[in-house]
């Protein structure tokens, strides 16, 4: 093994000489403690190394060994339900090893190499296989069927394959290539995190990623394979939005990266996800979730690696033909880690001290999302949707990370501190947010949910837009200066805001709303609006319309269980009709 010597130490950056035979990007073991690091820069025989652990106590003259391999992750059965740190060390295993604090230099393999899995062969001897072909399956959890794929670099005819119980290191199949050489296939693959996993072809995203969050699904939908950003100042509910998506997004696998954020937030996920039930499978949500936790007190360099670790694992499941959602909270912390390393490397800073390559790195990251045709003969489709939280300083999104992100992502959920202060959650501002998938997803929604879906949505958006204009008028002339119809418009917008867009993440029913229920609620609100407008034409008093009992029922509609929501819908409609007819009749009598 090549051995170098430390010559410089500056925080997480260490320089070593005598490294001429190491490669750029190699993982190295630094010092007597064997801290994990990665080579960032090579000049002659001098390597600049970013160290993923605290470097206190390290001395000049201590050895550096290269492993000769780039930073890679282990892929295979055993990933799901695990919580890893930024360089894929399993955190529960680390507790067994070093207690409740993370001691330096500790290593632990990401997957359990002694655990045995039931492998069911789906390919047979004599099959021609190449990278990506599925040769068997392992039921990893009740919710996840792990598909064993031929790894990169192996191509040929299956000589031997057998179902049975194996560890991930044991050979499950032997493939003979054209030259007659045999290759062993195990259930374990390694993949360098900074390299995108290959696919056959990218497809345009045209199917919504349903999240059960009304303001997202209806107003600003995300497509399967799409990218979204959630910027917002602190306290505006970024993390709750991310958690809600991780909980309820209609996907097969969720990869949640806690990047430079609070430790207790990860604990919260760890406590909560095993208890919550996936509405689709009925299994605990944890059974489809992989967590990457690099909290803010953990070393900054590993934070930089954590998003790559996460997205590589996500790509691996995408390659099985699954739809995968990746949440990164927060990409700003990742960018700050880039900035810190860049500063220590004495690179020329770009905007606000961030390196000039910030936007290209962000673009590369988000571009790894997408809907694709997977490698393999069956041309199965998989998707990877990426949702990144952004934490702009002072909530001002004119800063470089927000701006670079917005240039790439297609969906923008802008969180608003004022909404959050008024306890309107999710605090997604309906006037500034956008989704560029709206048009592309329209046909699907109109076909699968209701033919009026997109037209209803457009009406609601228009109303909200008009509300903000009317509000300015009200500031000048007061409510009485408005026409009755305009007053009605403001009133219906209040209904839309309070009863539709507002959603209580902590209410057992309201936390998730099916598309069907979303449409029904939208329909009923607009129905109420139309009937009221007709009534206004017949000179009915506004207060009678505003305070009719059905208003409260509309407000409570979101709390109705899905199973009785349709009955509730019919009843509210009847009540509105009856009440308004009654008002018109009374008004007629008064006239007579």
């Amino acid at each position: 093994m090549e051995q170098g010597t430390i010559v410089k130490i500056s925080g997480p950056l260490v320089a070593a000489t005598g490294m001429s035979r190491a490669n750029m990007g190699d993982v190295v073991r630094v010092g007597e403690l064997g801290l994990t690091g990665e080579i960032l820069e090579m000049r002659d025989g001098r390597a600049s190394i970013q160290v993923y652990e605290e470097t206190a106590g390290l001395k000049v003259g201590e050895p550096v060994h290269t492993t000769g391999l780039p930073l890679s992750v282990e892929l295979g059965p055993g990933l799901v339900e695990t919580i890893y740190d930024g360089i894929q060390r399993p955190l529960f295993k680390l507790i067994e090893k070093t207690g409740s604090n993370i001691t330096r230099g500790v290593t632990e393999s990401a997957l359990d190499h002694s655990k045995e899995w039931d492998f069911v062969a789906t390919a047979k001897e004599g099959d021609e296989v190449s990278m990506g072909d599925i040769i068997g399956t392992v039921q990893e959890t009740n919710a996840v069927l792990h598909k064993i794929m031929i790894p990169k670099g192996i191509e040929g005819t299956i000589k031997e394959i057998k179902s049975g119980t194996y560890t991930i290191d044991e050979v499950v199949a032997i493939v003979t290539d054209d030259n007659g050489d045999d290759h062993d296939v195990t259930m374990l693959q390694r993949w360098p995190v900074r390299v995108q996993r290959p696919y056959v072809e990218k497809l345009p995203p045209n199917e919504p990623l349903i999240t059960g969050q009304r303001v997202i699904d209806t107003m600003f939908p995300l497509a399967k394979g799409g990218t979204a950003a959630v910027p917002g100042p602190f306290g505006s509910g970024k993390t709750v939005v991310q958690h809600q998506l991780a909980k309820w997004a209609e996907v097969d696998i969720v990869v949640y990266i806690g990047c430079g954020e609070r430790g207790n937030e990860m604990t919260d996920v760890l406590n909560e996800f095993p208890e919550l039930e996936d509405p689709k499978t009925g299994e605990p949500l944890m059974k489809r979730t992989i967590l990457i936790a690099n909290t803010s007190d953990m070393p900054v360099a590993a934070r930089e690696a954590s998003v790559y670790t996460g997205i590589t694992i996500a790509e691996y499941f995408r390659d099985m033909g699954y739809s995968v959602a990746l949440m990164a909270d927060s990409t700003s912390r990742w960018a700050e880690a880039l900035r810190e390393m860049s500063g220590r490397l004495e690179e020329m800073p770009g905007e606000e001290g961030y390196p000039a390559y910030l936007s290209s790195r962000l673009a590369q990251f988000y571009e790894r999302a997408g809907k694709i045709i997977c490698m393999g003969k069956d041309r199965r489709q998989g998707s990877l949707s990426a949702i990144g939280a952004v934490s702009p300083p002072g909530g001002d999104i004119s800063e470089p990370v927000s701006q670079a992100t917005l240039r790439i992502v297609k969906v923008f959920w802008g969180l608003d501190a004022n909404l959050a202060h008024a306890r309107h959650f999710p605090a997604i501002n309906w006037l500034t947010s956008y989704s560029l998938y709206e048009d592309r997803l329209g046909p699907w929604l109109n076909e699968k949910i209701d033919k009026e879906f997109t037209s209803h949505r457009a009406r609601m958006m228009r109303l909200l837009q008009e509300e903000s204009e009317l509000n300015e008028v009200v500031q000048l002339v007061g409510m009485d200066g408005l026409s009755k119809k305009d007053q009605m418009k403001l009133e219906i917008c209040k209904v839309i805001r309070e009863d539709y867009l507002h959603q209580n993440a902590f209410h057992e029913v309201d936390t998730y709303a099916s598309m069907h229920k979303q449409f029904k609620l939208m329909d009923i609100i607009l129905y109420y609006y139309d009937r009221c407008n007709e009534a206004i034409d017949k000179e009915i008093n506004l207060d009678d319309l505003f305070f009719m009992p059905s208003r409260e029922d509309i407000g409570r509609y979101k709390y109705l269980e899905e199973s009785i929501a349709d009955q509730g819908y019919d009843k509210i409609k009847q009540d509105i009709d009856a009440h308004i007819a009654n008002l018109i009749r009374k008004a007629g009598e008064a006239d007579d």
Partner: protein
Amino acid sequence: MIKEYQTISEVSGPLMLVKGVQDVGYDELGQIELGNGETRHCRVLEINGDDVLVQLFESSAGMNLDDSKVRFLGHGAQLGVSLDMLGRVFDGMGHSIDGGAEIIPEKMMDINGEPMNPAAREYPSEFIQTGVSAIDGLNTLVRGQKLPIFSGSGLPHADFAAQIARQARVRGTDSNFAVVFAAVGITYEEADFFINDFRKSGSIDRTVMFLNLANDPAVERISTPRMALTAAEYLAFEKNMHVLVIITDITNYCESLREISAARKEVPGRRGYPGYLYTDLATMYERAGKKKGVDGSITMIPIVSMPEDDITHPIPDLTGYITEGQIILSRELYRKGIKPPVNVSPSLSRLKDKGIGEGKTREDHADTMNQLFAAYSRGKDAKELMSILGEAALSETDKIYARFADHFEKRYVNQGYYTNRSIEDTLNIGWELLKDLPRQELKRIHDEYVDKYYYGKNTADEEE
């Protein structure tokens, strides 16, 4: 054998370059002996070959490059810990300054700590009653939380923090409780206020104090909060105590960090603060919490005075991104005479949801909290509209809300610094205020609680 180096080649501000040094570790502590025998302290910031860049903890005045000698101690900054620390006062570097005997340490602990494994954390969920309605009722504090007070110069954050330290209790327990107080660059008067307050309330015997006052070396401030947190970790995780850590003022800490960063000619981030300010603050704040299998806990209340009352300033901004909420003091309320002047709308406790409700506080807590927030927010909007258009422009309902907002501030928030309200009192005062609103406005409260608490009283009134 410890080598001495007489090879100081450069001193500039708080930084010093020593040449020809061997076998020194990154972040190691050093001692400088001046020609006149005086000793000063330093810490290794960067090693480049045999050049070592160190940061001085004290001033460099009077230092002669030729006469001074540097010794490296072979370890990083440490704190000797023991239960005898309770009731004692230390300086910012952990030396006793109250005239008492030096502590005989049970063990030495590295003041930088180690990151806590997130999988080993226990989610904080035990309600702490601070006796302050604005916190207990609306921004509930729980054990293991880090909840800063965002204040401004001239605002009474000291009175407020002292009130919390005096009154904070977990109900139904009488367990081991301790306070660790770190004064970072504050004035003698302010520190004295805290010491007197601890003394008066009798809690001084359970308090460990670390004082770095305004006239102490600024660079020492980098270590002071870490000393305090190390003491807190020892008490909490090794002695199973429930520790409340108060650090004041984080702004002074950040200025020291900026000073060192500037001296090192690092690329500055926003407003000249170093780009790693977030990470640096996080390594302190994240030391609060609870661990699985350990009884003790660290609850942290750092005080941040916002320069120009600007919450988007990097210090409060980054703090807010790390801590689990914030309590914001408002100059406007202070001028109105509201004590404590807590601006509840932008204040937030992120961990409150798991700490309230039946069995912890009372079943109606979550609902009334949301209702009070919503009503106060609407009341403030109504008042704003009123100031533009006059009272006549308000609807009847909005007038009720405007009145509600006033009552809320005067009755609910304004309790003074010496009133200790039980959570029941706080919740009942909330209901008293909500009764001014019409029934149909209480949309966020379950009907059963409305029946019990809203009508419960009303029917009684009718009977009278």
